[in-house]
């Protein structure tokens, strides 16, 4: 919906099979956009090219795995009538406009996906899963005499309509408008190295970039991550415990089964600052003689699975969030982000702030213009000096990209203080 009017209604159906043939570390892959036996067989033959030595075919007995359901959904949003879905957007639109007369434009969207997957492996694995997804997005434009600013809010998860009982379309509309209005008064951010307090929830994007990717076992196997050979060693402040948890009910990153037919479980990556293990897919776990952790994920049947995160979280600490802010003489408070990126090999990561505030003498003062923060994963995490008791899961809006494949993920963390991070503002003074 653009500016209060439904601009377009769209939909699509996608269906197919991907066949992966593994020989040692070599992978042959092909897919067919059809479930006709002839075309599936053709894909299987193409994928088998990699096994040049040939050999006969054998029948494999498969047994269906029973799975826990981390996203039981009564009525999926895809099943809801179009008019009712439009009504949800209209509510968000109206709420955003009501916040202030300075809101001059609102755009909203709602996407719902019903995905069914069946994974069958030559080891006899068979697993079937329904993976629903809903995501609402609202963006608002605010205008004052001299400035135009935007704000956005989004959320959802592997949920049905019940999502909107917890977080209403109005909540997202108001939040988008609020950020746009706040940014009308934003000032140039400072430049340089300083203490940064990360707000709970969305800041989990920092974990995802700073440590998450570097602990994906394909980079470890290839010795391209700077976390290679670091298990058991200290890679963060003792206050830091990071888990990847695929089992959070209804969360955007949750999965009942990974795309290699492995049942994932909560996986402790860093405990008390010490590195415990990596996220493994089948190929890397074989290489390391480790158990696969259920981290083999892919975007669709068109792509090969690789180690990926699900919901990456930093566990709560003991500090009072207000105290944490009070402990900063001059620094910034980072609240909302639009995304991040990491260079796996040297560990440098960035994330883009869309709502932030200056901290002066322990108090939040001026809102800041959007900036990038840059740090080095292992270094930044050693400077974590306070961890709040206010853990929050970010509302489901994140999509992670790796090698051109996008998968939905979740992040979460409590209020955290980093003693030193580089803030990419323009204000040198």
């Amino acid at each position, binding site marked *: 919906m653009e500016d209060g*009017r*439904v*601009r*377009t*209604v*769209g*939909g*699509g*159906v996608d*269906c*197919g099979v991907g066949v992966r043939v593994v020989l040692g*570390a*070599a*992978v*042959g*892959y092909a*897919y067919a*956009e*059809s479930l006709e036996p002839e075309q599936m067989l053709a894909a299987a033959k193409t994928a088998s*090219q*990699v096994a040049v030595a040939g050999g006969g075919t054998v029948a494999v007995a498969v047994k269906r795995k029973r799975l826990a359901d981390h996203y039981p959904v009564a009525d999926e949003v895809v099943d809801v*009538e*179009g*008019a009712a879905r439009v009504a949800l957007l209209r509510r968000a639109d109206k709420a955003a406009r009501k916040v202030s007369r300075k809101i001059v434009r609102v*755009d909203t969207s709602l996407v719902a996906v019903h995905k069914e997957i069946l994974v069958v492996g030559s080891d006899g694995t068979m697993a079937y899963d329904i993976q629903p997804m809903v995501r609402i997005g609202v963006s608002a*434009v605010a205008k004052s005499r001299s*400035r*135009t*600013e*935007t704000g956005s809010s989004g959320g959802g998860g592997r949920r049905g309509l019940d999502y909107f009982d917890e977080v209403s379309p109005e909540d997202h509309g108001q939040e988008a408008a609020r950020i746009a209005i706040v940014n009308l008064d934003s000032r140039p951010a400072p*430049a*340089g*190295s300083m203490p940064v307090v990360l707000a709970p929830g969305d800041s989990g994007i920092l974990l995802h970039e700073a440590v998450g990717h570097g602990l994906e076992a394909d980079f470890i196997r*290839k*010795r*391209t*991550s*700077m976390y290679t050979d670091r298990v058991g060693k200290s890679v963060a402040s003792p206050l830091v415990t990071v888990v990847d948890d695929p089992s959070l009910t209804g969360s955007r990153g949750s999965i009942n089964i990974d795309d290699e037919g492995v049942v994932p479980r909560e996986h402790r990556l860093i405990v008390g600052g010490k590195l415990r293990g990596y996220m493994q897919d089948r190929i890397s776990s074989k290489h390391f003689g480790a158990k696969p952790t259920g981290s083999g994920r892919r975007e669709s049947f*068109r792509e090969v699975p690789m180690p990926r995160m699900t919901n990456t979280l930093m566990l709560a600490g003991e500090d009072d969030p207000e105290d944490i802010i009070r402990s900063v003489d001059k620094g910034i408070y980072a609240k909302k982000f639009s*995304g991040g*990126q990491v*260079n796996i*090999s*040297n560990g*440098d990561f*960035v994330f*883009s702030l*869309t709502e932030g505030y200056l901290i002066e003498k322990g108090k939040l003062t001026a809102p800041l*213009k*959007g*900036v*990038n*923060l*840059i*740090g080095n994963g292992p270094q930044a995490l050693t400077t974590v000096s306070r961890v709040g008791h206010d853990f929050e899961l970010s509302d489901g809006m994140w999509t992670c990209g790796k090698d051109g494949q996008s998968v939905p993920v979740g992040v979460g963390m409590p209020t955290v203080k980093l003693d030193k991070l*580089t*803030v*990419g*503002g*323009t204000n040198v003074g």
Partner: protein
Amino acid sequence: MSLPRSSERILDELAGHAELALAAAKAAGAEHAEVAAGQGRDLEVSVREGSVELVKEAQSHGLSIRVITGDRVATSSTTDLQPDALRRFAATAVEMASISEADPFALPPDPKELTRTFVDLDLFDVRTDRITAARGVKEAMRAEKAAFKQDRRITASEGASFSRSSGHSVLLTSGGFCGRTAGTYQSIVVQAIADDADGKKRNGAYWTGSRFLEELEPAAEVGREAARRAVASLGATQLPTGVYPIVFDREAARAIVGLVASCVVGDAVYRQRSYLGERLGDTIASAKVTIVDDPLLPRGPGSRAYDGEGRRARKNTIVSRGVLQSFLLDSYSARKLGLKPTGSAGGGGGVPHCSTSNLYLKAGRVDPKSLLRGIDRGLYVTRMMGFGFDATTGNFSRGAEGFAIENGELAGPVGEITISRNLDELLKGIDAVANDLQMRTSVASPSFRVDQMTVAGR
């Protein structure tokens, strides 16, 4: 277009599917419809440390449709091209339009505006589809081997890959437009890793890509360049926080030009998501800056003879000597803004949107090396990270890597810093543009220098 007979056959078949869907949509009550049918063939192979890591081959196909009935719009896509399925699919799309809302701006162009003649842009190489997996492996192996041989400090490789793809597509509209196009592309990518003293690893990446096989850089040269880049960044340090003159190499420079693109496409303008929205005719950059979108470059990576609505594609000058001349507009954004379309509709058969074709900043006259002259302390940027750009305000802040500039020469490698300045000021601060433009990507730029930016570092 001079295409091989096999391509013409594929296009005939796609046209058949599109005709069927178009007829079905009209039968179901659509007043207007646009159908795009496409097909693709891809091969991707990668090797790592001398062994084959992936051989992926695929053929894909799909059809997408936009229907309008009573000024209401719906879009849909499918991969099921069986006649019965297509008929159902088209009818469902028309049904979906009923829950949309009337939007008179959404109408397709007047049939008089649609083109019936097409220039041959030479986008299809018959050799591409014939490249076997074995040949791809050989090229990738050669590239990786050259990286390891180039320098003993290369300790690992993220792999070398070769890929090729070909695609055919047909666009059919109820206004009577019929466009047919085919293209190919191939590329080699190498990522080499060197170990740094502090346990950090430094990666150097380099690639070559082109529509024609014969225009690829030699595989070994790609590998050697990746290795040179990895080794050159060993020992990178932060610069002290401050204000410095900045030189962007052409890879980093094209990222900046890409930001300008995101602010001149019609969708951003009418949605009030562009700081340039109300600045047509204004000076928005230094007089050294001329930015052109040219879809008609032979063999160009972003070339097209017609746009996603069936208009003839044409060259548009966006910025001329610093003055904003034009946005890139499709019918929808043009109507919203009360301007004329520029033949810049992307896609086809989906939600119309504006897109660039081959967008580039025009080359200057000076040698790239001369950009460093006169800089006592500055920064040469080769790589940027993150998405720190707000099109509404022009605020720009991204992570950067590169080299320090000292006394007019490149000095030590630099990393883990950010560079910031509002894009409006940045473009006005471009005080020299080099002559090294290379059209290997659909957004391209020569190296250029900016008088100053804020660097946040140590």
